[in-house]
């Protein structure tokens, strides 16, 4: 059976080292791969890049890095936009921009809803990640970015082979599209893309001690969760929807009830919440 290449990107395992970004540069920047890609400039085209996401406010802060590369779409808009068959999909699913036929076709860049196609001004050429097809065809098992990833945050393989690591992760962990609204298909899927959090710390006002083991609840938007504060009195509700309204409540026996309305326009740090008698 023909191969069907796919990638799963686990954001929780991305340390933000940029080894993928740099390995891609090492492979492609200024390098021509005849029959696959023309040489992009030394800098400026980031065929894989990290989106940096800082979340929360001091001192409840997290920082995530989301690797983004060509989604090798099932129904690529770039193919539809191209003339003369300048963009095509290989049997293994990799989408290639023909470096000769695509000259002058700037509409290919603009067709991409995912914004991962770049315009080479000097060559008047639309360019993007070729999934290292030029290496896979020579027997390489993985693209350079995947091979260089120290934590296997990037996983690559044959989706038609149920034994491949990538197939097993797809089956077991149900990765999902980063931008389902664009309907790009299922060749590049994600795990653990951060959603919004609501966090805070509970403190006993009278004794000025962290309130450990206090139940904090959050309700709204179909969510009804509770959290036992840790020894620092901290609570973190993760995986909340963006731009949604929630109510956070603390009803600790013997203390005044705390009830707060929060809206997750951003991640929310409620700061110290004081329990008063």
């Amino acid at each position: 059976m023909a191969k069907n290449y796919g990638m799963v990107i686990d954001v929780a395992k991305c340390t933000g080292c940029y080894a993928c970004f740099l390995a891609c540069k090492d492979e492609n920047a200024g390098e021509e791969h005849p029959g696959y890609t023309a040489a992009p400039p030394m800098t400026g085209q980031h065929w894989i890049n990290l989106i940096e996401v800082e979340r929360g406010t001091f001192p409840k802060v997290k920082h995530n890095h989301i690797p983004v590369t060509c989604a090798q779409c099932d129904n690529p808009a770039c193919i539809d936009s191209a003339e003369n068959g300048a963009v095509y999909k290989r049997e293994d699913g990799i989408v290639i921009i023909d470096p000769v036929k695509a000259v002058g076709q700037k509409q290919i860049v603009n067709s991409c809803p995912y914004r991962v196609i770049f315009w080479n001004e000097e060559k008047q050429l639309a360019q993007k990640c070729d999934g290292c097809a030029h290496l896979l065809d020579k027997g390489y098992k993985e693209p350079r970015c995947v091979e260089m990833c120290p934590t296997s945050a990037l996983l690559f393989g044959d989706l038609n082979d149920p034994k491949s690591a990538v197939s097993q992760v797809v089956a077991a962990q149900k990765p999902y599209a980063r931008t389902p609204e664009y309907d790009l298909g299922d060749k590049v899927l994600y795990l653990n893309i951060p959603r919004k959090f609501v966090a805070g710390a509970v403190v006993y006002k009278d004794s000025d001690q962290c309130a450990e083991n206090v139940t904090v609840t959050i309700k709204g938007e179909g969510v009804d969760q509770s959290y036992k504060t840790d020894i620092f009195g901290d609570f973190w509700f993760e995986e909340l929807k963006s731009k949604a309204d929630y109510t956070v409540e603390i009803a600790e026996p013997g203390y005044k009830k705390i009830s707060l309305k929060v809206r997750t326009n951003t991640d929310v740090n409620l700061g110290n919440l004081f329990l008063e008698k």
Partner: protein
Amino acid sequence: MSEQILTNCTVGGPVKVHVENGVITKMRPIIFDDKVDAPSWTVKARGKEFAPPRKTTLNAYVVPERTRVYSENRIKYPMKRKTFDPNGERNTQNRGKDEYVRISWDEAIDIVYGEMKRIRDKYGKAAITGMTSSHHNFGYVHYKMGPFGRFFNLIGYSAMQDNPDSWEGWQWGSIHSWGFHWRLGHNEPFGQLEDALKNTEQIVYWAVDPNSTSYMYGGMDVAIWKYWFKELGIQSVFIDPYCNAGAAIWADKWIAPRPGTDAALAEAIAYVWLQEGSYDKWFVENRTEGFEAFKAQVLGEIDGVARTPEWAAKECDIPAHTIVALARQWAKKKTMLSVGTIHGATGAARAAYGTEWARLCVLLMSMQGMGKPGINCWGGASSGPPFDFSFNFPGYSANGWDALGLVAKKSYFPHGNPVTQRTYRILLPEIVLNGTASWTGEGFCGENIQQQFNKFTCPEEGPNGAPIKMVYRHGGSFISSMCDTNKWVRMYQSPNLEFVVMQDCHWQSETKFGDILLPANTNFERADICEWNSAGGYGHYEMSHNHRIVVYQHKCIESLWDSKSDLEIYTMLADKFGVKEEYTEGNTEEDWIRKVFDYSDLPKYVTYEEFKKKGYYVVPSRPDGTDSPVAMRWFYEGRPCDTPDRLNPRLGTPEAHLLGTPSGKVEFVSRSLTAFDANDQERPPLPRYIPSWEGHTVELAKTYPLQLLTPHPKFSYHTHNDNKTRWIDRISQHRIIKDDYAWWPVRISPQDAAARGIKHLDIVKVHNDRAAVLGIAWVTERIRPGTVHSYESGAKYDPLEPGKAGSIDRGGCMNMLTSGRLLSKNVPGMASNSCLVEISKWEQ
């Protein structure tokens, strides 16, 4: 032409090097061949199995190593400073702004030799000093300890002592608490991964970034360990004024003390444990001494100041209830304190009185019974993989400053250099500019505790002393990596310094101050042999990676431009001095490699030819089911040391169950410090919090209210990777392009930025009375208000007025701003993280 795939080893990991038509086309990690390469270890812990991936990883900064080799910033030819005339006007005032003219190798070597001879004849051998940088290339034969060390020890020079700039407080402090002088203050790392996976419940990362500096030369192999900790539910608490790269992704709790107050936090933690009785009383009674005095101090019985959480809260600007909770969780859970060993050595130890915090860390872990299962000091939680250390391969410092001497007929280290005068790196500008300087402490004090107290003056008294007239610099840049580096600019422009040689692969910030520049090649342009991530010597077996790999470093390409290997360059000089035979003993490069191979255990497993052809050898791991001896477990249990801590002087003696302190115990009150200077209020025998001489309490804070933190950078090893490849400049954590210039980020809180009218990505001036440096504002919630963060070691000293000391630098050399004041009066360390600044928007 067909592609060749060769091997080599970088500072950040071994690589497969693809070469076509004599040009390197790519570098890749080594993917193991399961048919040939030894199996990896597996740790079974809490019902799970953990085994590393079957490949090497690379530190991000060496991924683009190919472009570093071909960088436009290579020194391409031997060069002479235009207005330097060795036989006439030297024009030392033009250093830093002169142009350079290309000269031949013959001319360059003639000038260097001629000047060295003239200076030696006129002033004495001691008038020449020299120093390498660490880690700008990797290898055994060609690493700095080899070519440079052997040459200068052979001909004689004023050896420049090296301060342990990455972990000052540990060497100058903790040695007096737990010994380990043979590890420069770090404890042994052995068996700690296995112990942690099996037993640990919490890791406290204090002033350390396990997602940056802790990787050391180990690639990013140990990043995967952190995910295993998550899988096991091991809690991660980070204490750092900056939510560092590790904290940002792995912290369960981030606590941000005000810079310079970590020792106060430590004392308050001890206070909680004393109040609540939550410490290991057996350990304290049987494995330590001086505890009663410490207890009295913490409870306020000595100076009337009880170290309560409320007291510390005022110093540290952390809520008292957080300090109490931290102390309670620490006592309740089996905790690794992620300090000690090179992988945990940064931050708070590189600050005024950083000795005190480092010593208090040791004392805190003693109160928790360090050495018990799951409880220890474990630097960066990044060392101590279950390796088989019985396999011998020499680390690069196995024979000190004559690496080749290990396998030569004659070694010129430690006995060889006929000159007894010493210089001291961070005081070199004072020595040159003022004519003299004195200091206490011998730099790397790995031989014994007494080295810390030895007094030095340069020039040395007596007939053998000489003023310093020449500096020979080999690799890297002290401008930008040492403190207050405007003083290096002043030094280089001084007529006192008659001659300066810069020998390096790349133009560094310091290169343009040389009179003669000698272009060295990289480790891809010559052959070598090495074990990945192996320092040997005082750092032996401090390894932060998953497989021991010995690499034959193939010569991948011919030397670029007119560069030569360091070994070739010193051989030419040795020839001029008439000591070529002594220097080389007739060995070629390949002969040296072969001798190191023969010295090691490799011949038991592989022939030289096989090894050279394949390019690497994976050392078999410990067999499954055999536990590594665990660091400090022997001490806890009162057994002779059973770890391979080879330089431990008590090994094999009746005292092998004791630590390296005079008492053999953990010393709350240090005997060595009591004997040296019992009245030293800046490093007292009993450690305590001492407010920083440049911190939040001093008068200067009214003028310069922001505390500047300058850790080692994440995307460059020292100055070696910055400004060599354009790609790293495209990583916004490293540099940010604005108006076609790659600016150095300065991290500032939204409150501090708003108060100064500074917006995200504005160009800003960071300034104090010492300097002004431009950078680009990165407004972030990851820094505590009142503190700014910008990495040190930018490699692009770019003064607006070239060659003028004190000029505004727009390249981002933050160490222009830091103080050159030593850590404390008897501690000759750098206090990089004690620096007050103001920041304003740069409008020009």
